């Protein structure tokens, strides 16, 4: 390779992110209300089968939780990277199209609309199939509207603004629902909006994979065009790209990735905005294939780290994951704003 030197540096970072993901994954398995040592986790993972309580806890709860965190990190970071490229806006993220608002509306309708149904088990509702389905439907409806708009509208900024307005309108409807809802239903809904990676069971995790893997494969097919779109849509057209099909592919990929994660975990903020920027800052490149690989592993590592922090190792309290990702992500966003001479350039 002609650009060998630069490449080997990039490989180094990506390998480092992979190692970090593996290590943090093991740490995440050991973190939680029941103390399981790191050594024991390694023994459970790589040693012979043990008929112990630890094995049950790790297998049934910790492993799905860590895997969910890993997949959430991957999905949100890749979506964020794609959105920042397609909108050529550094502050775009997985939720700019209003996908989280759509999902929230779906959940709000179910939780608040049928609140009597959930009376008994408010705190376990996030794992409920009905909830997942309603969140998914909600984001699908938003996606279909955005797609229809993007087929007619030529200017990408119009789509961005419409997406944001659409999201705000849905949020307004949700607040009306909240205003008229009962106390317990309201609490259940608020807890859903705080996000959680611990409500996916070992049986449901396969559904998560079924959403994420096609999303990632679709994203892979947009990488070549994304490199050209960095120059602007007019240049991309003259290089032979059909911009509308490109946008549709990106939107499908993002909604598969973000929609699935949001349905299972609730809206998780800032990971999707921050991770692509962290990768750009460290790798100093605009190559989409490099940033794609780096975002996958940096995203999963950061999400696992957030989950470990939210467990507050050594205590029985669990923080809402959204609070942790925001506290990590917001400084990055502030840094982007302060460092940019022009906020409009990527």
């Amino acid at each position, binding site marked *: 390779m002609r650009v060998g030197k630069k490449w080997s540096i990039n490989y180094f970072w990506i390998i480092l992110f992979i190692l970090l993901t593996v290590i943090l994954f093991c740490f995440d398995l050991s973190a939680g209300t029941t103390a399981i040592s790191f050594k024991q986790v390694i023994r459970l993972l790589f040693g012979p089968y043990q008929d112990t309580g630890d094995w049950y806890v790790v297998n049934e709860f910790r492993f799905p939780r860590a895997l969910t965190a890993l997949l959430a990190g991957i999905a949100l970071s890749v979506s964020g990277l794609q959105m920042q490229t397609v909108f050529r806006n550094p502050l775009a993220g997985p939720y700019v199209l209003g996908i989280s608002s759509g999902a929230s509306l779906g959940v709000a309708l179910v939780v608040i609309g049928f609140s009597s149904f959930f009376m008994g088990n408010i705190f376990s509702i996030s794992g409920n199939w009905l909830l997942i389905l309603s969140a998914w439907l909600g984001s699908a409806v938003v996606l279909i509207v955005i797609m229809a708009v993007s087929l007619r509208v030529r200017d990408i900024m119009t789509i961005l603004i419409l997406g944001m307005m659409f999201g705000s309108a849905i949020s307004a409807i949700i607040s009306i629902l909240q205003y008229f809802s009962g106390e317990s239903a309201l609490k259940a809904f608020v807890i859903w909006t705080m996000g959680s990676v611990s409500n996916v069971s070992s049986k449901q995790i396969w559904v998560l994979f079924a959403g994420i893997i096609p999303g990632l494969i679709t994203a892979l097919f947009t990488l070549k065009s994304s490199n050209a779109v960095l120059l602007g849509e007019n240049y991309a057209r003259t290089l032979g790209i059909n911009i509308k099909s490109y946008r549709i592919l990106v939107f499908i990929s993002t909604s598969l990735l973000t929609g699935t994660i949001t349905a299972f975990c609730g809206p998780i903020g800032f990971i999707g905005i921050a991770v692509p920027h962290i990768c750009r800052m460290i790798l100093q490149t605009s190559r989409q*294939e490099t940033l794609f690989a780096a975002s996958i592993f940096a995203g999963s590592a950061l999400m696992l780290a957030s989950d470990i922090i939210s467990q507050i190792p050594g205590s029985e309290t669990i923080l809402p994951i959204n609070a942790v990702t925001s506290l990590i992500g917001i400084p990055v966003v502030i840094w982007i704003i302060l460092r940019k001479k022009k906020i409009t350039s990527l």
Partner: protein
Amino acid sequence: MMPPVNPILSIRDAHFGYHTRSGRQALLFGINLEVGRYELIGLIGRNGSGKSTLLRTLMRIQELLKGEIYFDGKNIDDFHRHEFARIAAFVSTGVLEVEGMTIRELVSLGRFPYTNWIGRLKADDHEIIDRSLDEVGITSLADRKLNEVSDGERQKAMIARTLAQNSSIIILDEPTAFLDLPSKYDIINLLHHLTEEGKIIIYSSHDLNISLKFSDRLWVIDQGRILDGAPEDLILNDTFARIFESDKIMFNPLNGDFELKRNPEKVITLTGNDPVCLNWTMNALIRNGYRISDSGSSIPVVQVKKEKHGIIWILQTDKQNLLFESIYQMLVILDDLL
């Protein structure tokens, strides 16, 4: 102009413009143009006359309102987008900002229409990229970031990208707009050189002077029509004088420059032994409101002498002779005298 026998590019009865909410707004009407050989074509026109619209329509970024455009006998709308990318390459106006992108990466994007689904560059792609970088003279900058080089170097990188795209036509919208004067000459000279390698290059510009000197052909937009010809033809048939002159500005057909119109009352005689010194002394005198006497008998007289140790200016009035070592000194005294 007689249409060439085998036009490569042909524009037939075309209306160029844009769509508005209330309908279509045409800027150029019934345009017929043919390009039959590899040449550098400068597109000249005032702001808002439709330069960018024409170029963007040729690139299929904008829709043609009416008429047809043919490349090698085939309507350009009948080409697939990725096919058309092998025919025409584009450099738009404005400064490109992509954080972290290197010049080589930018130039590699020219290979976009030729690479596979993930954009993998093969050995011959790398060869073409290297050749393109070399052709515009930026090989040494290949691994620098776009935001670390000068505007002129970035513009060369954009041109190298179009070379990597290996298209017959290159279209550039104001490629010299942000550049300093030497860079402007550099870029247009480069474009002229590239036409010799078998390319049709169409560029728009406000630098009439440079376009006159380097273009094989000019398309001048005048009230919705395009006047077509060699720059020299357009000077000789008074096209420029007619289009660009106003009550304050006149076109000088001798050197292709624009000059301020003046009505000088003060007359002066100028003599000297060196044409360059004479030329610039005259320039200074005219700027200061003097008319150079044709008969050579008016007083005062300025004599400019180029000698071994330097240039001196001698100012003769009816009372005295004064000697100066710079035009500036002389002008200050001249103002006081009269």
